[in-house]
């Protein structure tokens, strides 16, 4: 055993733990989303869901750089952000199934998961709609001197929304601790952003004197390294930052978007899935560096799979909210 540990340890223990933790989180999101897709296909889940499969490294890399009391706002494709920020699988599934045990007592659903305990200000089904909320949370952090930062996750589609630029301007003027994270997965719903984005994204932030950078969003180590530096800077009072994570959604825009060759080719999808899978990339790298072995990763998969299964069973068995709940929580 001692020999094995020696052989594996070429990096500090804490760092290895962190990589494995990120591996586990990404895997958790992947298996959660696969389960969601399965629930949808078996008609066990009401409504739709926008799967995060393929983009796990973005949420996990960024959230790993945050404190648990830091804020995030999320999007319609938000399960990954919630889980990366510390949400529990069972309450997530319960919310997606509209059950009372869900994070929002079933009133929010897939696109509106919110949780004060993990600093999650809420996912938003209005594209770009949470940019104000995240920036306002940063204003609070600055005024109350809490040292918190706020991360605003949004897709490349939100680059078309004026709200984003209004709040970027104010965040820069007032040096607010907010980080705008654009998940550039190349598409809006069914339209390539070649058709919708003029110029260069980073230059837009630069126009507000906001420092921007882009990173390979499939490489969780790179996302995490970039996010860590940015968070440190922003927390220290340097003002807002902009991070573009170049990524790809492996599945359809939502679970029902199956035939999608009219907007992107199967070859393109295949290439990303085989060459650019964030979980595989980290696993391969950990193996190549002798930092872990296949058996350990396989063990992790078995563990996470069983957690996901238990959580979904819990949620399926959980009761719906009683009809008397429908007009509660309209007003505080």
């Amino acid at each position: 055993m001692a020999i094995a540990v020696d052989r594996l340890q070429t990096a500090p223990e804490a760092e290895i733990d962190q990589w494995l933790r990120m591996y586990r989180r990404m895997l958790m999101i992947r298996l959660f989303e696969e389960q969601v897709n399965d629930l949808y296909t078996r008609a066990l889940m009401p409504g739709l869901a926008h799967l995060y499969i393929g983009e796990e490294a973005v949420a996990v890399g960024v959230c790993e750089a945050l404190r648990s009391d830091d804020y995030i706002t999320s999007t319609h494709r938000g399960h990954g952000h919630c889980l990366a920020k510390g949400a529990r699988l069972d309450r997530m599934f319960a919310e997606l199934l509209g059950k009372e045990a869900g994070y929002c007592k079933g009133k929010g659903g897939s696109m509106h998961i919110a949780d004060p305990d993990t600093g999650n200000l809420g996912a938003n089904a209005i594209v770009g709609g949470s940019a104000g909320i995240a920036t306002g949370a940063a204003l609070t952090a600055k005024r109350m001197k809490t040292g918190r930062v706020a991360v605003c996750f949004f897709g490349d589609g939100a680059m078309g929304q004026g709200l984003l630029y209004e709040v970027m301007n104010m965040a820069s003027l007032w040096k607010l601790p907010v980080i705008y994270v654009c998940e550039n997965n190349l598409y809006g719903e069914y339209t390539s952003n070649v058709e919708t984005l003029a110029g260069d994204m980073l230059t837009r932030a630069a126009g507000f004197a906001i420092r921007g950078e882009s990173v390979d969003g499939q490489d969780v180590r790179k996302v995490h390294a970039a996010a860590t530096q940015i968070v440190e800077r922003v927390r220290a009072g340097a003002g807002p930052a902009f991070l573009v994570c170049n990524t790809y959604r492996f599945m359809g825009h939502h679970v029902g978007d199956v035939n999608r060759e009219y907007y992107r080719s199967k070859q393109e999808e295949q290439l990303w899935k085989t060459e650019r899978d964030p979980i595989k990339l980290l696993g391969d790298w950990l193996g190549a560096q002798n930092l872990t072995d296949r058996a350990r990763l396989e063990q992790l998969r078995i563990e996470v799979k069983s957690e996901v299964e238990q959580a979904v069973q819990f949620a399926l068995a959980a009761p719906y909210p009683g009809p008397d709940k429908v007009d509660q929580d309209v007003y505080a």
Partner: protein
Amino acid sequence: MPETREITLGEAVREALVEEMRRDSRVFICGEDIAEAGTVFKVLGGLVDEFGPERVLDTPISEAGFTGMAVGAAMTGMRPVVDIMFGDFSTLVMDQMVNQAAKVHYMSGGRWKVPMVMRATLGATRRSGAQHSQSLHAWFCHVPGLKVVLPATPYDAKGLMKTAIRDDNPVVFFEDKMMYRLKGPVPAEEYTIPFGVADVKREGTDVTIVATSSMVQVALGAAKLLEADGISAEVIDPRTLWPLDEKTLVESAKKTSRVIVVDEGYGRYGATAEIASAITEGAFFDLEAPVKRIGAMHVPIPFSPPLEDATVPNEQAVVAAAKALLG
């Protein structure tokens, strides 16, 4: 005897803000030209001197942006008051108010709260043209999760603003821009006015005139004219359109059996329609005639003074309606 002074409606709003900002360090106000300029209506003059530019925050001309920020600030522990210069600019903040502020509490299963106030102006006859004269308060009344306040006197403005700031929900507070200089008695000592409690501005027995905001003075003027003709009009101001004090309105309707509702918003699908239907449902068998509604004419507000004046309900219209109701 408690001291009472005469102050203007603008001063009353300002006093409420000052007192609440002194009482609670989480309260701040943001908007365009509010600090050194004290707003274009000069309502907040001097506030920045006492509270500094961080709590009287001049913003860029970004209504959606700073309203959205207020939502986030409110969720995380502040109590923002947003100043929307002209209620016409409600169009620009609708997503933040309707899809965000109003829904956060419900969508989160009651876990996040949005204690914020959006102040805005309403009212025509300032010769400001079609984009600076509308009364769009009914839009907000349509949305569950929002509360909508329309003060008509300095006393009400102060007490209701203090309640709005202390409320844990998003509150939309409309001030009639033509009433900022209206004077009225306001006690020197502290008070608040609960939401959902209508105020009988004048008691009467023959006809009930339900009036909001700018139309309360019009209704009171009409009541005076009617009195000269031997008609006793009761004037009731709901003060908050949501929550709406249906009970007081219905009781008055039962007493007088004739009702006029007058509001400066558009009549179609407007506040008058909702109030008239609440009264009809609650007092149908006591009514002598259908409830009469009077609202702004259904046209964009014109610039030319005689045209603009023709779009707004006036005392003569209310008097004529009352006489018609009384046959």
